[in-house]
């Protein structure tokens, strides 16, 4: 397991993105990281992965962290299976190419995300949802104890968001992975995360049980927009929506979008 103790980072001398931030994610635990753009979510993920040394504090533990970047990159022209195979690189020496057992493990990881059928297809020809899942399989292929995902649902349609969130839940339960992910969807944090870390624009942060800290007050303070949590009546009594009150008005009088009336 990895942990952060009192870490702080800034790219400009006096402007701290976050300070005195401690995290000790437990096994089988999902932690959501929320914050407006520019508050250092991705920076924090890099510190968690060990690819960025924080200006203050320390990262404890040397276990492998599986990192899932946003599914934007489509370089290379590798197949989906080769892409997953890249996750085995940490086990390979400088002059070593993946062996049969690495390929077998990569194939297992593709199976695990439900993409066994597209192993031979080129990664850059896949849909956004499939790419995200391939990157997730790649992170799994490095046999990590901790999985870190950077906005795993941001590029996905509604159905695929559900696929990825369900998969995260299953991985935390069945493989006992500690999972940390950033998101701009508070409802995703509430749906799958046990803990939540909120990064406020002024460099303050709050960490606690997701149900407690992801509330209307904190969300409004974080995003600078009034936010309502609305229970949805109907088929699923536990369903709810998080609605920002933007008070937008279309120029045409015919249609309005005000979210929920105050």
């Amino acid at each position, binding site marked *: 397991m990895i942990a952060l103790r009192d870490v702080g980072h800034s790219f400009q001398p006096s402007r701290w993105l976050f300070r005195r931030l401690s995290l000790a994610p437990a096994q089988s635990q999902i932690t959501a990281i929320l914050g407006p753009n520019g508050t250092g979510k991705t920076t924090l993920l890099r510190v968690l992965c060990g*690819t960025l040394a924080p200006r203050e504090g320390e990262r404890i533990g040397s276990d492998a962290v599986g990192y899932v970047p946003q599914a934007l990159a489509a370089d290379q022209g590798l197949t989906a299976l080769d892409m997953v195979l890249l996750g085995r690189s940490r086990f390979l020496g400088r002059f070593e190419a993946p062996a049969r057992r690495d390929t077998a493990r990569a194939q297992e990881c593709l199976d695990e995300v439900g993409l066994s059928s597209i192993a031979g297809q080129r990664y850059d020809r896949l849909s956004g949802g499939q790419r995200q899942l391939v990157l997730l399989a790649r992170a799994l292929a490095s046999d990590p104890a901790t999985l870190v995902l950077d906005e795993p649902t941001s590029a996905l349609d509604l159905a695929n968001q559900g696929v990825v969130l369900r998969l995260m839940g299953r991985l935390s339960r069945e493989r006992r992975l500690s999972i940390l992910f950033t998101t701009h969807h508070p409802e995703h944090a509430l749906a799958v995360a046990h803990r939540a870390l909120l990064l406020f624009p002024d460099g303050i942060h709050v960490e606690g049980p997701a149900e407690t800290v992801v509330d209307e007050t904190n969300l409004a303070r974080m995003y600078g927009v009034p936010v309502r949590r609305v229970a949805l009546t109907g088929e699923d009594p536990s369903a709810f929506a998080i609605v920002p009150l933007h008070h937008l008005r279309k120029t045409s009088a015919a249609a309005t979008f005000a979210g929920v009336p105050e």
Partner: protein
Amino acid sequence: MSQGGLVSGGTAPAVGGTRQATLVVALFAALIAALLWSVTAGRYPVPIDHVLAILAARIAEVSPVWSPTERIVVEVVRLPRVLTAAAAGAGLSLSGAVLQGLFRNPLVGPQTIGAASGAALGGVTAILFLDFGLSVQFGAFAGAALALAAVLAIHRSDGLSPVLTLVLAGVVVSAFCGALVGLVTYVADPETKLPGVVFWLLGSFASATWPKLGLVVGCTALAGIVMLGMRWRVNVLALGDEEARTLGVDPVRDRLVLLAAACLAISAQVAVSGTIGWVGLVIPNLARMIVGADHRRLLPVAALMGATFLVIADTLARDLTPAEIPVGIVTAIVGTPVFAYLLRRNAAGAA
């Protein structure tokens, strides 16, 4: 990953293991065929059965069917020449493929990135102050490494459009090295040094000898073992530094090893045959169209194609006209249209 669109690989689907093996065997056969053809062809044609007999005589007792002249043409003139061309072509193409992977940019090659002109400058400087021989190889390697370091230093200072600045930095460094090469030829003693310098700079395999062949084969083999051995690491590095780190690979040291190997192969070619352009730029792109961008498949295929291409280009250079045309002209005539095509394709892909 703003330059992602540029590094999109070939349009061909990824090739399976057996198909890859078949392809490598076929390319190897093509290389052997090209070598044999090259040894028979020329102003003094030697029949293929005589060539084979002369070659066989080196390892077994064969009753001579050849004339003494044929034996000299084959053993002293042509064999070292065609083998040098093959080693140089393989080294250039392999280096080009590795550089393109490392810089995630298909427009990079030994020449566009300044390494070849750096090697030329190092080589002429060595000829001027020392003499021909091993010193040229050392000078060329030092020149290539310095030029590459200069390009990287210029490149790092601009983060806006990494693909283009890298090529432009290469142009700048090449121009600077070219100017210094001009200065060296200007100050070279016209009686003793200048003819040698000019002849070397023109670029040709005509002066190939067995000792020179040994040098280029030794350097290229060493560099080739490193680059082919690290073929999976090139895949990892081609994702970019940040991703390589998250995959548990330290990109800095691996890249340094690969760049040194590329410099060694490029400088070995320049040391024996002067600057020969386009091979290391165009052949890796053609190879990528055939086997895709996985460097496990790309690197061996690029090396074999480069060797075959340069053997054929050199044979044409010496046989097309009564007087030999510089091989660099042949590679440029073939290479420039292909490069133009690649530019168009990339522009379309990026749009």
